[in-house]
């Protein structure tokens, strides 16, 4: 079953905030993540699909049926809320069985189904507990079981990991992906955590000010961002204002850089983009720089910040005319770097 937004617009009454002309499709078994800063409209996208608000324009289509005017209970979508929203007065099995209860399934049958579903998320032994007795991660599992027990047409995850500790987040991320893949269900994930989106989504949509900026696979978004905003939002990046000086050469604040300038002509303003991990530490850089010149992509400078992140270090290197950010697994002191021409991408100027 597919979930689809067709040119959907919505603004909150009495406010300018909302979403504008959004078209998206989530195929069967696909996981689409919506990312964006606070107020970008990502939660509104989920509310529209869940049926909590109705679009001003456009259509919400589930399995080729227009559901724009349907209430949430008629849409058959499983939703995992940010705070899980497990009913505190019901035992875990009753929580999971609730969708079956409202569908008229007998008590014995719904208890069996609920326990089986709890087993799938590793919570069978706690079936008779109340939600208050569970940790955040355990509540998350139960919420996931409850959202899937009635075989919904789609699964909606609203910042499902934001309330968890960092260590548990990775574990639950994998768990969600495992259950989602096993169910083969179209899934919409709303998150502000770009790492979470990159790690589990098949496709990612980046939102800004209620508009869809870019839609693509995690790799596309990371490697070929549409603009400087996406490049800056998804992962770490070096972004330098520049101007095409000649074919194959771009002039930036830190100096001239060799790169592929196809699609641009001399004099064009651009934003030069390169990921920090593509910058190469150069331990004989001073000599190479002297030999090759700055246009050769060699830079020396002083370390402005050296952050130890466990497997890697993130270093800010002050060079003449700007700052270069690089990531390296090396433990040696870094004062010179090489900016490879093939790692540079040119993005539209801001």
């Amino acid at each position, binding site marked *: 079953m597919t979930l689809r937004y067709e040119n959907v617009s919505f603004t909150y009454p009495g406010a300018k905030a909302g979403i504008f002309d959004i078209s998206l499709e989530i195929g069967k078994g696909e996981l689409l993540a919506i990312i964006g800063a606070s107020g970008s409209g990502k939660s509104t996208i989920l509310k529209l699909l869940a049926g909590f608000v109705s679009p001003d324009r456009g259509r919400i289509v589930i399995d080729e049926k227009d559901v724009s005017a349907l209430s949430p209970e008629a849409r*058959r979508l499983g939703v995992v*809320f940010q705070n899980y929203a497990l009913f505190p007065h019901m035992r875990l099995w009753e929580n999971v069985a609730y969708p079956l209860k409202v569908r008229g399934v007998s008590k014995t049958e719904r208890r069996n189904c609920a326990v089986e579903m709890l087993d799938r998320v590793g919570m069978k032994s706690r079936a008779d507990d109340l939600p208050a007795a569970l940790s955040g991660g355990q509540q998350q599992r139960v919420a996931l079981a409850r*959202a899937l027990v009635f075989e919904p047409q789609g699964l909606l995850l609203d910042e499902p990991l934001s309330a968890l500790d960092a260590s548990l987040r990775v574990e639950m991320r994998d768990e969600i992906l495992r259950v989602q893949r096993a169910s083969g269900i179209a899934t919409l994930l709303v998150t502000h955590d770009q790492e979470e989106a990159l790690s589990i989504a098949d496709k990612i949509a980046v939102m800004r000010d209620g508009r869809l900026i870019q839609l693509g696979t995690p790799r596309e978004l990371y490697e070929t961002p549409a603009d400087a905003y996406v490049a800056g939002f998804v992962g770490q990046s070096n972004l330098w204002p520049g101007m095409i000086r000649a074919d194959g050469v771009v002039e930036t604040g830190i100096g001239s850089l060799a790169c592929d300038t196809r699609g641009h002509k001399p004099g064009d303003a651009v934003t030069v983009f390169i990921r920090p991990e593509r910058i190469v530490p150069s331990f004989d850089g001073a000599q190479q720089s002297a030999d090759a010149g700055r246009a050769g992509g060699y830079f020396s400078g002083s370390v402005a910040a050296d952050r130890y992140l466990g497997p890697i270090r993130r270093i800010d290197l002050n060079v003449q005319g700007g700052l270069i950010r690089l990531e390296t697994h090396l433990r040696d002191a870094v004062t010179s770097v090489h900016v490879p021409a093939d790692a540079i991408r040119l993005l539209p100027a801001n």
Partner: protein
Amino acid sequence: MPIVAIAYFLFLFSPVLLLALGSFGESWSNTLLPTGFTWRWYEEVAADPSFRRAFVTSLQIVGITCALNVLIGLPLAYAIQVGAKGGMRFAARLVTLLPVAVPDLVLAFGFILVFSSDQLPWLGSFWLLAAGHLVLTLPYTVTALVADMEQLRLDEYEHAAATLGAPFLARIRDIVFPLLSPSLVSSMLTVAALSIGEFQLSNLIAGFLSRPYPVVLLQAFYGATGFACAATIVLLLLATLASLASSLTSRLSKTKKEAAA
């Protein structure tokens, strides 16, 4: 500090203590404390037909006021919580709180003006008294329920239930009522405590046969002191019981809210 606290406690409770002593005292005139011991005053209160009728009337008024508070207060609080936004929400809260701000006397005069007319000649009736108690107590119910609905994050649970396929009535039955029941019970006990002790409005709008207990109690003070003390202690006991029960259920409700948070 403990001395100040003890002094304040004595100041608050000495009238109650004196009433209790007076209700068991055989005689109390021209002495600091009553003399002798007797159950007679309580027996006389229990045997007095006007007090018996007033006691029953008070219990009936309390019961009806509580029932009306549930029937009107709960949907009103729900509508404010779910439906009213921004200025409308503020206006709705203001209107429901207005009876608390307006002195009882003003309300009573309003009732007298409106319900002594030929078109609405209901002044002195039992049901008008119940309506008066409802007007006075409804703000407490609505305010308490709206606050509890917010604290319980009821809207989130309702959203969750809706996505799971529960229609409106099922959500009310399975989610709203069970989660709100301790708050509702606590609110009703508060309403009962308020209604039992209400005097100002009742004194002005109650008819001779529909006088509640506090109104009849006033007359007791024109007679024997021991009788008046015993009659007051009966009222005090009822109000204290309601308040205690309200506090207990309020604690239970708080535990539930903490579990929900």
